[in-house]
């Protein structure tokens, strides 16, 4: 059971890491406020399911969409700023969203919000059930990302990350695609938030603070931005780290900090990113394919 709970945790964060990966990894737009969309999703579910008794699927879907719409708006606003300014704008957004959750009584303010245990078709869904739901969701996100990677939008996003000017010159409306990437990435974070709300049964603004954004982004970066395996591996490594290092409980945060520093200093492209040691090994082992999709 403990294993499953840890796996649920890792799974939720893997979905989140995959979601920020679409914005930061593929489209190349720094986003240090992903936890706010995670929070928007969770709060939407808490309000729908907790206050209005809405069922699982509608809550999940509405939560995702509300997060995605807010994400689209932030994406639109972010067109005015770039690079470091954009990074700080997203940080600021995170602080403001958390402040709103913390202060506005509708969002439970300082008392937080409770979510009734998840039931499907009248039966309570335990941790195992939740884990399956999360696995399914993660699978969907992976499939979606894979599809995206192989379709025109994926090509457009990566080209924007590489060189905006050149992408424009090839008929790619870079502004539109940046906004879309924000919309999709935040939509997925909203889904993750919804499931998280059911899993925790109780949420507070504290859970969606800026540090959570950093955790999410660190997972994607440590694993390898712009890949699918990367954010998942990152979520596993950094998600398990606090559990694994329980035996040195006093030094856990210290080790966490050290992992971030060492990884960024010596493998800044992430564990499986382009040019990392693992990626090179895999590249050598894998036979060359033409990569044509029929």
């Amino acid at each position, binding site marked *: 059971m403990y294993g499953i709970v840890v796996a649920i945790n890792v799974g939720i964060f893997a979905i989140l890491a995959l979601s920020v990966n679409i914005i930061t990894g593929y489209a190349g737009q720094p986003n240090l406020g992903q936890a706010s969309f995670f929070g928007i999703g969770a709060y939407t579910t808490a309000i729908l399911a907790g206050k209005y008794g809405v069922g699982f699927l509608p809550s999940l879907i509405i939560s995702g969409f509300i997060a995605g719409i807010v994400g689209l708006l932030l994406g639109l606003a972010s067109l005015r700023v770039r690079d470091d300014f954009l990074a700080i704008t997203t940080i600021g957004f995170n602080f403001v969203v958390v402040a709103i959750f913390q202060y506005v009584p509708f969002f439970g303010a300082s008392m937080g919000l409770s979510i009734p245990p998840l039931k499907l078709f009248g039966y309570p869904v335990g941790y195992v059930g939740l884990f399956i739901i999360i696995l399914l969701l993660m699978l969907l996100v992976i499939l979606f990302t894979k599809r995206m990677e192989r379709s025109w939008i994926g090509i457009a996003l990566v080209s924007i990350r590489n060189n905006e000017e050149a992408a424009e010159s090839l008929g790619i409306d870079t502004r539109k695609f940046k906004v879309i990437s924000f919309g999709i990435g935040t939509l997925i974070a909203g889904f993750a938030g919804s499931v998280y709300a059911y899993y925790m049964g109780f949420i507070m603004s504290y859970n969606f603070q800026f540090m959570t954004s950093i955790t999410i982004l660190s997972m994607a970066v440590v694993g390898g931005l712009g890949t699918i395996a990367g954010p998942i591996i990152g979520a596993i490594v950094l998600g398990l780290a606090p559990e694994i290092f329980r035996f040195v409980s006093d030094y856990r945060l210290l080790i966490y900090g050290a992992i971030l520093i060492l990884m960024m*200093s010596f493998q800044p492209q992430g564990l499986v990113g382009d040019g990392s040691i693992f990626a090179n090994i895999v590249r050598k082992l894998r036979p060359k394919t033409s990569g044509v999709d029929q």
Partner: protein
Amino acid sequence: MFLQQLVNSIVIGSVYALTAMGATLVYGILRVLDIANAGAYAVGAYIGMAIYALTGNLFVSLIATLIISGAIGICLEKFIYLRLLDKPSIVPLITSIGVFIFIEDLLRLLNGPYAKRFPAKLPFSGIQLSSVSIPATWILVMVVTAVLLFILWYILYHTRIGLAWRATAQDMETAKAMGVNINLVVALNFLLGYGFAAVAGSLIGIMYNSISPTMGDTPAYKMLAIIVLGGLGNPVGTVLAALIIGLVETFLGGYIGFFLPRDAIAFVALIIMLLIRPKGLFASNNA
């Protein structure tokens, strides 16, 4: 009450200015958002307290704090930041967050999680007017901030190395070709950047008579808002932005009332400003 709030806001603004100055200096030269600077803030408070306990001399402890933390900053620069400069900006940012987490937790392990006292005896007493009271520690904060900012201003605008700093911030390559030893400028930059943050931490410790390992948490992020408002890498703009935030926070929070918590005000201001003037309030044209 208005006067009292005005004094409050100046004290708060001074603290912000000093705290954000370190990050501004680092950004000015290296273009790295240095969250670890807030770690220096906490480290500085502990070093300051330890040296004050040893020597009993406030002046000595502040100077020593500046130098020791500055040296730590130089080590960070040499061993960690310098090798990351050609990487995407997200890499040094995450590294600096890693450093920040590391420093904070190291402080907890070394000093315990409890807040400690930093009872400094000041050679002067507070001012008491009919409606305004200014405690001695506030005077200390304002005076030290003013002195440090004056020294910084003097260095930047009236010394050779300050000239080199400004030239390097504008065009590192040409500055190099003009004979500026960039390594030295960058080292000085970190010395001052981390030194200032450390002194700010010490002052805060004295002002609140309390230091704790997590004291850098709030400054770490608020200073980001301030340095952006100040035009990223512009020292003068940063001071102005810090004072403005001090004013706005005090009067919105304590006078008029605002629907969001005080710490959110800086970020609301930041977002509004970025949408109107994306390069910061006091951005220079070449930034």
